[in-house]
């Protein structure tokens, strides 16, 4: 698949010396969902704003569908839809006029059927004659999405689409994203909710302090960096870990009811067979065994704090 968005050594520094982007290079393939994960102030919004033309980069290039975002900005920008983080809407205008304005601004001819379809999908059709100021926060966020979709973009940027949104709307948003992907739209979303990236992304990029720390398939990332834990539940609680099990570095949990063994899935030998044998040898009876995989959140915290292997 060709890259629909190619970012090369993109840098942004401000007059006061602050470097918001420190040479970001990234290729995004058509039709994928990329989640950019990072703490507040990491440079997520700066990166998106630079691609979309709101911020002028200090150096580096961005091409969208092969069009340079500065030299050939008209062609590049017409492929992009942007849903900003803040709810920026003209409060006195109606939903319909606001969305229609966006389509026209991008030079697309009037198409009421398409706008109706978008508004219906976003559950906004009934509200089309309402003024923006009369809508709830969640509805306003949908209007922002409708505006971005009104000009039929091939790439959609969602800057923290679910920040400050309740659980139900967040799930709705995930459904919308899945439907958009199915219709062939490439989606780049920023979030600091790990579960969001885990739930909907194909690839995950981790950004911190203006630099892209890594970009990887979600599954690979989790397998590569994931640690698993094996919990061995005992029939009879113990107070001390037997000496012959000391080298497994076990934790005694649940008041002595269970032993927890942490191992690396990348290792050639996980040590599970040996552990289970040694547990039996030590005269402990097993009630149950279960494993847990570390979440993206653990991986993320490790990465950002620089503890990653």
């Amino acid at each position, binding site marked *: 698949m060709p890259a629909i968005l190619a970012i090369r050594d993109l840098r942004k520094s*401000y007059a006061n010396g602050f470097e918001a982007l420190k040479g970001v290079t990234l290729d995004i393939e058509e039709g994928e969902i990329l989640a950019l994960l990072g703490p507040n102030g990491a440079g997520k919004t700066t990166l998106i*704003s630079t691609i*979309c*033309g*709101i*911020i*002028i980069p200090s150096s580096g290039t961005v091409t969208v569908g092969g069009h340079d975002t500065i030299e050939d*900005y*008209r*062609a*590049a*920008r*017409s492929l*992009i839809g*942007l849903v*900003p983080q*803040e709810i*920026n*809407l*003209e*409060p*006195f*205008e109606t939903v319909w*006029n606001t969305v*229609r*304005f*966006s*389509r*026209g*601004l*991008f*030079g*697309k*001819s009037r198409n009421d059927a398409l706008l109706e379809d978008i508004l219906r999908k976003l559950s906004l059709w009934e509200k089309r004659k309402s003024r923006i100021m009369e809508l709830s926060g969640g509805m306003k966020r949908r209007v922002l999405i409708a*505006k971005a979709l009104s000009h039929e973009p091939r790439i959609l940027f969602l800057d923290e689409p679910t920040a400050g949104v309740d659980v139900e709307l967040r799930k709705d948003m995930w459904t919308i994203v899945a439907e958009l992907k199915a219709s062939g739209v490439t989606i780049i979303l920023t979030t600091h909710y790990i579960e969001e990236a885990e739930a909907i992304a194909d690839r995950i990029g981790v950004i911190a302090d203006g630099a892209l720390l890594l970009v990887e398939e979600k599954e690979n990332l989790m397998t590569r960096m994931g640690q698993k834990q094996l919990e061995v539940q005992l029939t009879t609680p113990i107070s001390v870990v037997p000496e012959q099990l000391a080298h497994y570095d076990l934790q005694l949990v649940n008041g002595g009811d269970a032993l927890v063994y942490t191992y690396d899935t990348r290792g050639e030998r996980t040590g599970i067979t040996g552990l289970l044998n040694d547990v039996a040898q030590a005269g402990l009876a097993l009630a149950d065994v279960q494993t847990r995989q570390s979440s993206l959140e653990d991986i993320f915290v490790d990465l950002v704090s620089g503890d990653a292997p």
Partner: protein
Amino acid sequence: MNWTAVASIYRFEMARFFRTLMQSFLSPVLSTSLYFVVFGAAIGSRIDQVEGIDYGAFIVPGLIMLSVMTQAISNASFGIYFPKFIGTIYELLSAPVNFLEIVLGYVGAAATKALFIGVVILATASLFVDLTIAHPWAMVLFLLLTCLSFALLGFIIGIWAGNFEQLQLVPLMIVTPLVFLGGSFYSISMLPPIWQKITMFNPVVYLISGFRWAFFDTADVPVGLSLLAIGGFTTLCLAVIWWIFKTGWRIRS
């Protein structure tokens, strides 16, 4: 040219005007009527004639200019400042449009509103005084150029302004005094000689004089100079706006 975008911006801006149509319409009618009551009837009855023209009629071009200039500035400055203030400017900056299209949309709408108010005042004035327009086409040209150039100035102010106070500052502190001292309500020839010279540095004098010439065929300065002044002013504003978009001053970081 992305004409669809120009039309969209224009329509969106005009919608704001139509939402407050009564205010947009009533306010100039009311203030013009008040000016006629105060200047025309109360003071005019003692002044009688200026340069051979009834004082009531004499002030009409100045009155129109006063409203058109302030309305063009306030509409255009608010039009571009408001998206900056509420954040919707992101869409304008990320859209496939160039500076000329943005300016045409916003300034075009602001100039249209100012023109509408100018026409309303002219209609209101004709209820109070007998008006004959000596050079109707020149009158239309001056009116259009004034709407356009002051809307351009307003656009610059709207981009420059960092808050609502600054938005009001230039119109209040600079434009209104220049218009009042620019011969709206008097002829320059009525001033003492020294002030006649000083007042020539006021650019508004040339606009009002030219506009008044279109009505009454009498002017403080040659009409060619008036046209040159307004043409130069429009070009200057366009150059500043071109520079603003080239450098991203106050809009793109």
